[in-house]
């Protein structure tokens, strides 16, 4: 008997993707996560462009992670030109990235994934029965956007984060007002956690998983780091990210697949909590305990839970950043001058969906000769297929409709951002 499950158009993820699982004689024979988003060749297109044109263009890889794309792009350029930005700039950039993290996680958790757990077709239908939860989710999402608007100047594709610093530094009053909203938001997030904790998380997708995230020797949980760490204990320099993400082009999709030491791996909130979770403290730490992510898990559906924990972390971190800036006295500084030179620069940051790499090579006028961006979803695709295989194997006797829904749930748990993954990397 042959059975094949197709989800033509994966909904409630950003972009266009599909799932294709073929089952023959009770065995899963083929698993494909298909991406049919059109290709835009953005990395090839920035070749020849001047360095300052790069961040806004590459921000357009993805709307939902545009803040972290922009920041990573800035960091890579500043790395190439040895630009040192002020500690205030670093903090404000961190704050912006936290805003993106809150927004993206809240959107995914409350509007895209929650309906799955509760059996709804989406937030629009969920809202009539669970208005409170959806409203709370939207409130948190808005909080993330407020940060992005204040620091980035726009919720999507930030304009204010530029090379060397910020176009306009927010005033002390603005930051303090933001802090008040964050404090309120934290309350809301903690209430939301109660609800998330009450959800039952199935474990049909459980399978051995390698996690990867940025790590550092710092004491605190962070969305930045100075090396790539793995659940097996290995670590790598950020500059050698290519060895980790040795991408392959596969015939069925516009996007490529990443492997580390021959194995697929997972990046994202769950990987971060698994690898760096011990560094969480205060409310985020408590949330981690409450949500049962204290002990290792290999169930991808826990990525949703990890996102909930990170929402709390990001709010707390944002408050901390504001306190630190305000305490030091906010300076209305102008961006540091950039002196372009020939060379290469690489940077990584933790996007909501996992580690993001930008790497550029410049000529001496500061024009790009080579650009490489590796997005988290691209890294996750191979792992998604692995989880499909495991899930389909367990669920082989389920009726097709339910199998289809559950596979979709797996794909969605990764919070895949398909416009992200359809990017272009040079293959040697």
């Amino acid at each position: 008997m042959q059975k094949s499950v197709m989800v033509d158009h994966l909904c409630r993820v950003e972009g266009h993707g599909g799932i294709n699982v073929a089952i023959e004689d009770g065995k899963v024979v083929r698993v494909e996560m298909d991406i049919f988003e059109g290709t835009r060749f953005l990395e090839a297109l920035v070749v020849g462009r001047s360095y300052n044109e790069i961040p806004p263009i590459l921000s357009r890889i993805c709307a939902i992670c545009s803040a972290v794309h922009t920041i990573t792009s800035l960091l890579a350029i500043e790395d190439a030109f040895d630009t040192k930005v002020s500690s205030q700039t670093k903090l404000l950039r961190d704050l912006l990235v936290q805003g993106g993290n809150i927004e993206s996680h809240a959107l995914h958790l409350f509007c895209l994934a929650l309906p799955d757990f509760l059996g709804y077709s989406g937030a629009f239908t969920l809202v009539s029965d669970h208005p409170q939860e959806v409203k709370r989710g939207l409130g948190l999402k808005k909080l993330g956007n407020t940060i992005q608007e204040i620091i980035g100047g726009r919720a999507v594709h930030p304009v204010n984060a530029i090379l060397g610093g910020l176009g306009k530094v927010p005033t002390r009053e603005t930051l303090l007002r933001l802090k008040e909203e964050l404090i309120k938001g934290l309350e809301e997030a903690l209430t939301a956690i109660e609800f998330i904790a009450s959800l039952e998380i199935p474990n049909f997708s459980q399978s051995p998983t390698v996690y990867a995230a940025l790590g550092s020797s710092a004491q605190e949980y962070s969305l930045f780091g100075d090396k790539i760490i793995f659940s097996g204990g290995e670590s790598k320099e950020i500059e050698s990210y290519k060895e980790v993400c040795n991408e392959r082009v596969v015939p069925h999709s516009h996007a490529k697949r990443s492997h580390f030491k021959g194995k697929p791996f997972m990046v994202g909130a769950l990987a971060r909590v698994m690898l760096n979770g011990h560094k969480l403290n205060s409310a985020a730490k408590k949330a981690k305990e409450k949500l049962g992510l204290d002990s290792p898990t290999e169930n991808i559906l826990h990525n949703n839970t990890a996102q909930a924990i990170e929402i709390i972390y990001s709010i707390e971190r944002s408050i901390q950043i504001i306190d630190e800036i305000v305490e030091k006295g906010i300076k209305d500084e102008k961006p540091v001058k950039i002196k372009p030179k020939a060379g290469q620069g690489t940077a990584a940051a933790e996007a909501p969906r996992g580690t993001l790499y930008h790497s550029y090579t410049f000529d001496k006028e500061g024009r790009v000769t080579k650009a490489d961006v590796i997005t988290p979803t691209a890294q996750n695709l191979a792992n998604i297929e692995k989880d499909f295989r495991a899930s389909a194997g367990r669920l082989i006797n389920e009726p097709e409709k339910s199998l289809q829904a559950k596979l979709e749930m797996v794909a969605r748990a990764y919070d895949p951002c398909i416009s992200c993954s359809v990017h272009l990397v040079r293959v040697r």
Partner: protein
Amino acid sequence: MAKPKVGVFGMTGCAGEQIVILNCEDELMDILKVLDIRSFHTAMSENDEQCDLDIAFVEGAVVQPEEEVWLKKIRKRSRLLIALGTCAVWGGVAAMKNEVSPQRLKDEVYGPRGQIFKSIPAQPLHSFVKVDFSVSGCPIEKEQFLQAIASLVHGDIPVLPKYAVCTECKLNENTCLLVEKSELCLGPITVAGCNARCLSYGIPCCGCRGPVEEANIASEVEILKEKGFTLGDIRNQLRTYAAPAEVLQTYFTKR
């Protein structure tokens, strides 16, 4: 009056417009009160792919032959088709690729062994179907989108400003970056609606909303050249968001 039946569709792009719609956190409930959303893949699973629609909002540029087919299908079932975002209105960043040979792009990206995917020059929606109304912006401005919805619900075609960003820049009393600081600002030829967002942060307008109806490209280029920018720089900046816009095409093919 029955709620208008609405679909939100995305061609190729960064999904910015759909995210902006979802960013209407405070208004989402009210939007649902006035619109009957039948299709919105990014937000819901049960999508009606067949029904007639009063309004189709379409974001993104057309870059694959399949998208052309899909777009035409959407057009057929919709009374009004509204282009959302610079990609849909002008081609957007995706259309930069039209300037580079497709073979080179594929070689550079997927390597010689990589699968060659079908790809056509990125084009705005109006290259393929009739567009009843356009809301540009990269991404669109939430306020403009909400304004457009309100007008549509009222039964009118929305009106959005047609003048240039400079006007909004002045209404906000910003220091002119072009005149006072000699920066490469595209405000004079870029259509307003963002309330001079970048300028209010002291950052020059990069033209993300696409050109005004009667953009005087020649004069803008002259002004910028006088300030010391090369034609190459100016051209790059102009074509980043709106490469296929007729005014730009005409200007640059003349050179």
